[in-house]
């Protein structure tokens, strides 16, 4: 038997033993255990080390609010840090390790930080990393150096580096009523709405429906509350209008009653089922939401309240009742309200000795006194805990007389021997989702809690969420909420009978016991009460500033425990009531959300990819593919043993010497058709298209409305009212939207239709001195001689029986032809061209060679049309028509856009014969130690086989005026410095005789 497991009781399956490891040691637990309950059952009290001070920490809670017991779960190579042990269902083979300790959890070198407590107080980083501004280290990076080590010492779990192999998916759902939380209130709401025929989704973040009914020990309808809840949940089976989502945290409440939820589908399984995703991200659109999210018990703030063995009262009750685990043998309680008395009795019944109930209130009701005597507990009313004792586990506590009104302690401290101290500081409704949905929470003086605001979206609250902490109230609330959510009044019904313990929901307004020692407010971020007061003394008045300065409530638990105590201490320091200090707005996510679930199908197997019709041919013929946006394009067709540079140099050289062929199917293609198509293109392009003859193509440039260059490409006039526009691969979508916007919004009177036809055409560009001969050898139905197919001419013919459209235009600078055919025939035509090219030495070339040849020619692409350059900067001012207005024409001549010192396109030649790098800066004066005064940067670079040199295109101040002058490349990141010559961007064949010839 495990040391702390009770003999009977609990809702675990004692017949099923589960083996797992924690920090390398093997343990067993039972089906139904969480990692926290199983470790507690094994007598483990130390779960982790705290964030700043490396203090030993145990488990504080039994649920999602856990700030201390955070562990890293290992699955193969994949590590997931910062998971609350209270939320991990154990399975055979579970491997978890503790965090923020070195070299081991029980002997941690970082614990020395505790001695330097003053140094690590609030605002530590802001204060410390300012200098040194005086002394011998002034002006050095000494603190930066130290910061590295200090930051490493602080913190939580370490993220892994292995890729996450799990699959995640997204789901959309619609419903009439989304019920969040399945305690008695949520169950009743879901039942009422389901019975009315509404479509209902019931989401519960725990594995089992029932919420507090699973551990309250109450009796509902003459059966244990847990059985009542199981029966209520079971009644939904077989109803196709209700969807049950266990292990599902609703974490975001967005506009239009859209909610985000995370379903942990397989985290609790040793072997996930085939096809099961690890997590499922739900987007739920609900007509109405019922918020039955319950409440959190608050810790009390007193010295040593973080010692392992100090726990929330209800958490201990839950461990005993739901998991059959006693967190201690000799248990003391410290409370400001009645709820702890029921806990004492429950733990007594489970087998623990209750050594004392320390209550800050001087007067207690006779009912509470009766409960205490049933628990055989000594009552210390008007007392407070002022210290805890023990190292890695609690051994005792000290109490003193306490005056609730003044907060003063008096009398001698009395020691009490106990191995577990339970605290209850009252209850805070879990109003996070309501707060996310819009309105500001309202302070309730009697309950000492923020209650949900008036709904700003369509939600209805129920149960403890409303501050109705009694089970019967929750049941009534839930049923009413479920009915009104579907607009029903419902028939009268007999409400269930509930047997619960007496008790007043109103706590005493005591949050902190001021005594010597560290009293923690935010356990996870190691923020003490003194830190909060320090922030106040240093002038932080706004609660938002307080939060940021102390990092109170900013850890992964988002202040679920610390919010109210922190506010109360701040309010006292300010001398203001709590509602005037205000509360911070809760923001999504309610609890941590896996990044994988947010990415879901946009990552991995399901990411869309765009493949050209000739893709398989490229792969089969040795292409190394390159991802360009969603497209995959051949980078090189490398021969064995070739480097990338050797391959592209060979491809480019062969193209210029004989001929090369490249897949250009990815170019954006837009059919622009209609009576006003030519007029439209005149408005869209900087140059004229209405004058373009049918059967001819023209290079066009588009500007944005602000006068900067936008995109370029050729547009082919296929008919009087029929144009085929090509765009750059990257901008195809943007250009399409640009055209649609102007047609739909600005010029709806134009009779033009635009259609994206990118995927309808396969394209191959054949260029080089032998290109025409190759076409002549395979094209039928048309001649391809200079008279029939002049530069920028278009002909139609057939290749291997397939109709093709051929336009003579050139990106490589060679005589070149773009051959387009229907996408389905892409590979067929491509293979026919390859076959026809064999006698002429035709090579296939990829993006690298394409880029090399365009750099040699000085053509621009997206690297130069970067959203900052104008047509003039790129020496394309010859394309700016003066005969007509066009998009951008009014704005392109603004002062700043025609200034003489603008960056202009130039060519660079490396004078030291070494490769250049894209993004490197160009300077007039070389200063390797302290690079300064950039005159521009490199946009594209390559080794040019045509010139036999390393060359680059660059945007340089003054541009043309610097042709023939020298400068230096300055690239400290890659440690590349050296002399360059600035030349024209037209490196190769500047008069274009090769492509016109």
């Amino acid at each position, binding site marked *: 038997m495990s040391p702390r497991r009770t003999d009977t009781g609990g809702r675990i399956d004692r017949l099923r033993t589960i083996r797992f490891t924690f920090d390398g040691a093997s343990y067993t637990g039972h089906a139904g255990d969480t990692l926290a309950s199983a470790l507690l059952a094994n007598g483990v009290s130390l779960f982790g080390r705290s964030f700043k001070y490396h203090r030993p920490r145990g488990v504080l809670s039994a649920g999602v609010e856990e700030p201390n017991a955070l562990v890293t779960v290992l699955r193969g190579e994949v590590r997931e840090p910062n998971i609350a042990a209270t939320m991990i269902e154990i399975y055979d083979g579970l491997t978890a390790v503790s965090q923020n300790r070195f070299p081991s959890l029980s002997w941690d070198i970082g614990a020395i930080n505790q001695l330097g407590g003053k140094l690590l107080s609030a605002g530590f980083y802001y204060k410390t990393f300012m200098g040194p501004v005086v002394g011998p280290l002034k002006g050095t990076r000494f603190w930066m150096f130290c910061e590295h080590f200090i930051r490493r010492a602080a913190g939580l779990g370490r993220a892994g580096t292995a890729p996450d192999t799990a699959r995640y998916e997204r789901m959309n759902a619609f419903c009439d009523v989304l019920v969040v939380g399945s305690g008695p209130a949520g169950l009743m709401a879901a039942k009422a709405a389901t019975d009315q025929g509404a479509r209902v989704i019931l989401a519960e973040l725990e594995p089992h429906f029932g919420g507090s009914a699973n551990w309250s020990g109450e009796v509902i309808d003459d059966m244990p509350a847990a059985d009542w809840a199981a029966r209520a949940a079971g009644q939904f089976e077989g109803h196709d209008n209700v969807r049950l989502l266990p292990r599902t945290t609703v974490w975001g409440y967005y506009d239009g009653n859209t909610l985000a939820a995370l379903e942990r589908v397989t985290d609790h399984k040793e072997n996930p089922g085939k096809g099961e995703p690890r997590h499922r991200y739900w987007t739920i659109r609900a007509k109405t939401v019922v918020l039955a999210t319950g409440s959190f018990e608050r810790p009390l703030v007193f010295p040593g309240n973080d010692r392992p063995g100090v726990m929330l009262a209800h958490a201990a009750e839950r461990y005993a009742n739901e998991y059959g685990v006693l967190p201690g043998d000799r248990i003391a309680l410290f409370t400001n309200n009645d709820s702890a008395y029921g806990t004492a009795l429950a733990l007594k019944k489970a087998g623990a000795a209750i050594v004392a109930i320390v209550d800050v209130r001087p007067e207690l009701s006779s009912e509470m006194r009766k409960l205490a005597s049933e628990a055989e507990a000594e009552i210390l009313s008007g007392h407070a805990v002022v210290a805890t004792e023990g190292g890695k586990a609690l051994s005792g506590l000290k109490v003193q007389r306490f005056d609730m009104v003044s907060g003063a302690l008096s009398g001698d401290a009395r020691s009490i021997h106990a191995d577990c101290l339970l605290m209850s500081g009252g209850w805070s409704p879990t109003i996070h989702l309501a707060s996310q949905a819009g309105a500001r929470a309202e302070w309730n003086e009697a309950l000492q809690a923020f209650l949900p605001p008036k709904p700003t979206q369509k939600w209805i609250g129920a149960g403890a969420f409303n501050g109705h902490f009694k089970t019967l109230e929750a049941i009534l609330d839930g049923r009413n909420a479920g009915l009104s959510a579907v607009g029903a009044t419902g028939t009268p019904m007999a409400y269930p009978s509930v047997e619960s313990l007496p008790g007043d929901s109103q706590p005493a307004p005591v949050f902190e016991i001021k005594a010597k020692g560290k009293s923690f407010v935010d356990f996870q971020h190691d923020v003490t009460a003194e830190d909060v007061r320090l922030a106040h003394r240093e002038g932080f008045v706004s609660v938002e500033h307080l939060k940021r300065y102390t990092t109170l409530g900013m850890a992964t638990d988002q202040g679920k425990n610390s919010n109210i105590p922190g506010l109360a201490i701040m309010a006292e320091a300010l001398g203001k009531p709590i509602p005037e200090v205000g509360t911070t707005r809760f923001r999504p996510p309610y609890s941590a959300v896996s990044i994988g679930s947010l990415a879901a199908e946009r990552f991995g197997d399901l990411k869309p990819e765009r493949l050209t019709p000739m893709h398989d041919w490229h792969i089969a013929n040795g292409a190394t593919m390159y991802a360009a946006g969603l497209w995959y394009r051949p980078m090189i067709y490398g021969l064995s043993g070739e480097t990338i540079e050797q391959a592209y140099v060979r491809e480019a050289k062969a193209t210029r010497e004989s001929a090369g062929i490249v897949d250009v199917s990815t170019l954006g293609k837009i059919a622009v058709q209609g009576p006003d198509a030519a007029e439209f293109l005149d408005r869209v392009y900087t140059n004229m298209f209405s004058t373009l003859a049918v059967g001819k193509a023209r290079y066009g440039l588009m500007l944005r409305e602000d006068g900067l260059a936008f995109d370029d490409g050729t547009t082919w006039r296929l008919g009087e009212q029929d144009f085929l526009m090509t765009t750059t691969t990257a901008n195809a979508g943007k250009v399409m939207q640009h055209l*649609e916007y102007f047609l739909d919004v600005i010029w709806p*009177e134009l009779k033009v239709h635009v259609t994206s036809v990118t995927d309808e055409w396969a394209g191959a560009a054949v260029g080089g001195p032998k290109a025409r001969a190759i076409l002549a050898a395979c094209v039928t139905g048309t001649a391809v001689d200079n008279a029939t197919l002049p530069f920028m001419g278009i002909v139609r013919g057939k290749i291997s029986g397939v109709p093709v459209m051929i336009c003579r235009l050139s990106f490589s600078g060679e005589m070149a032809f773009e051959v387009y055919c229907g996408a389905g025939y892409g590979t067929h035509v491509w293979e026919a061209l390859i076959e026809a090219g064999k006698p002429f030495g035709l090579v296939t070339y990829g993006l690298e060679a394409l880029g090399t040849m365009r750099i040699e020619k000085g053509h621009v692409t997206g690297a130069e049309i970067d959203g900052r350059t104008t047509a003039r900067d790129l020496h394309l001012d010859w394309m700016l028509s003066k005969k007509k207005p066009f998009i951008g024409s009014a704005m392109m001549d603004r002062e700043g856009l025609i200034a003489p010192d603008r960056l202009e396109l130039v060519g660079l030649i490396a004078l030291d014969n070494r490769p250049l790098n894209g993004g490197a800066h160009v300077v007039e004066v070389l200063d390797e130690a302290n690079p300064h005064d950039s005159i521009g940067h490199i946009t594209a670079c390559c080794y040019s086989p045509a010139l036999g040199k390393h060359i680059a295109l660059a945007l340089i101040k003054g541009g043309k005026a610097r042709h023939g002058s020298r400068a230096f490349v300055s690239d400290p990141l890659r440690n590349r410095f050296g002399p360059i010559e600035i030349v024209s961007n037209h490196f190769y064949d500047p008069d274009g005789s090769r492509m016109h010839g």
Partner: protein
Amino acid sequence: MLINCPYCGPRDVIEFTYQGDGNRERPQAASQNLDAWNAYVYDRLNPAGDHNEIWQHSGGCRAHLRVVRNTLTHEISSTAFAHGGHKSAARHKAEGKS
């Protein structure tokens, strides 16, 4: 956020692309009034409240919609096709351009 596309019905905002402030008035194409162009390209009202916006149903019918959205609550009080009643459209028509 749901946008009620007149063609497609209510659809999630994920299907739409924001295409800018619907209050922009494009000067006549040939206008050389730089102030007017400047206002068109750069000046925005940035109201706290109802805002006239252009959204394209890019993941659907691709129509541009004129949407009045409250910037504080994201409540959408009206959606209509952008070209219906747009000032530049009306102006072009009034001037007899086709």
